[in-house]
């Protein structure tokens, strides 16, 4: 039995947003990396936040494990935690920086920007 009303919200619980992509701006200067990163000065990395609760939507691309865990969590929240809201698709960004020999290097770094979030 799912512990939710017809709007999909749980009784007696503060409603939290579903797992989704949220803004996260990375500023290399604040990280103290501006002495070796030439460009960009920062970028939009995004992050994943929200709950993975029953029923899981297909756009969250849940793994079979996440479906089982979410189902068990919906039946008994004390025995099993909900599945995790994490990045499921990431994209690269280009960075221009100086290496330890002060050579200027261009590099494409994989998995820097969150494109999609899902339940795992």
């Amino acid at each position, binding site marked *: 039995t799912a512990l939710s009303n017809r709007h999909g919200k749980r009784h007696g619980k503060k409603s939290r947003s579903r797992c989704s992509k949220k803004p996260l701006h990375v500023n290399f200067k604040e990280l103290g990396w*501006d002495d070796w990163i030439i460009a960009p000065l920062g970028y939009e990395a995004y992050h994943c936040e929200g709950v993975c609760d029953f029923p899981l939507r297909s756009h969250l691309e849940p793994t079979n494990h996440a479906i089982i865990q979410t189902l068990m969590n919906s039946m008994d929240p004390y025995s099993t935690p909900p599945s995790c809201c994490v990045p499921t698709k990431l994209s690269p960004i280009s960075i221009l920086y100086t290496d330890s020999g002060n050579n200027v290097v261009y590099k494409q770094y994989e998995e820097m920007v969150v494109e999609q979030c899902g339940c795992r």
Partner: protein
Amino acid sequence: FQSAARISPSVPRRNREARISHPGAQRSSKFLKDILTYLQPAAGHHKHEPKDAIVPHEYMLSIYRTYSAAEKLGLNASFFRSSKSANTITSFVDRGTDNLLHSPLRRQKYLFDVSTLSEKEELVGAELRIFRKAQGNAQKSGIYDIQLYPCRSDRQLNSRSLDPMDSATSGWEVLDVWDAFKAHRQHHYHQQQRHLCFQLRVTQGQTEVDLRQLGLDRSGRTQQEKAILVAYTRSKKRENLFNEMKEKIKSRRSVGEKEEKPRTRGFKGEGPRRRRR
């Protein structure tokens, strides 16, 4: 190009301390602690001051601009085929100088410190880019032949023609040095040979030409006009951003140790003040 400006670190001290005392940081590995220590003002004196600012060559800036724009358009994978599937492009600035006593200037040695290029990176291309300044009094007949050799061999690496009319305008001469760079890496892998050296000469017919005539002399060159060796590499495994941080910390630490050494001489048990005296 706003992002090209090098900005000195100015993160407020209290912000850094707050970050260090964060519970997540307490659980961090030794490496993360190193990073946090590196961010502290005490270690900051090893950071580059604005006077040491590195001016990137326009070529590197244009690579960055083009590829980051392509990324935003989603042209990622296919676009990189044009750059030999490289995901890293490193520019090494020429450290060679012309011997001013040699007049006419018949040959030039171009010297590059390539020691920072990791052996884990697969070299997929390399080119030597030499800036040629415009010459008003260029000859109007005959074709020039630009020839490139290794410094310790007479085996020609590459050559290209230069029309005398072209010498009236400034421009970059690009010579493929991939084979030479590959050979250098194979032969000197265990010897840790730091420098890659090329010799340039220009002929017209059978005669060697004074390189000054073609605007190739290197005196009074700005940083952006210096020759660069551009290496196109592809990482064999997925790149971790922290590798660069590790390298930076290592190099800063070695600089720091060199600076500290004279101060640490002294008798056992002496305090820092006494050792300084």
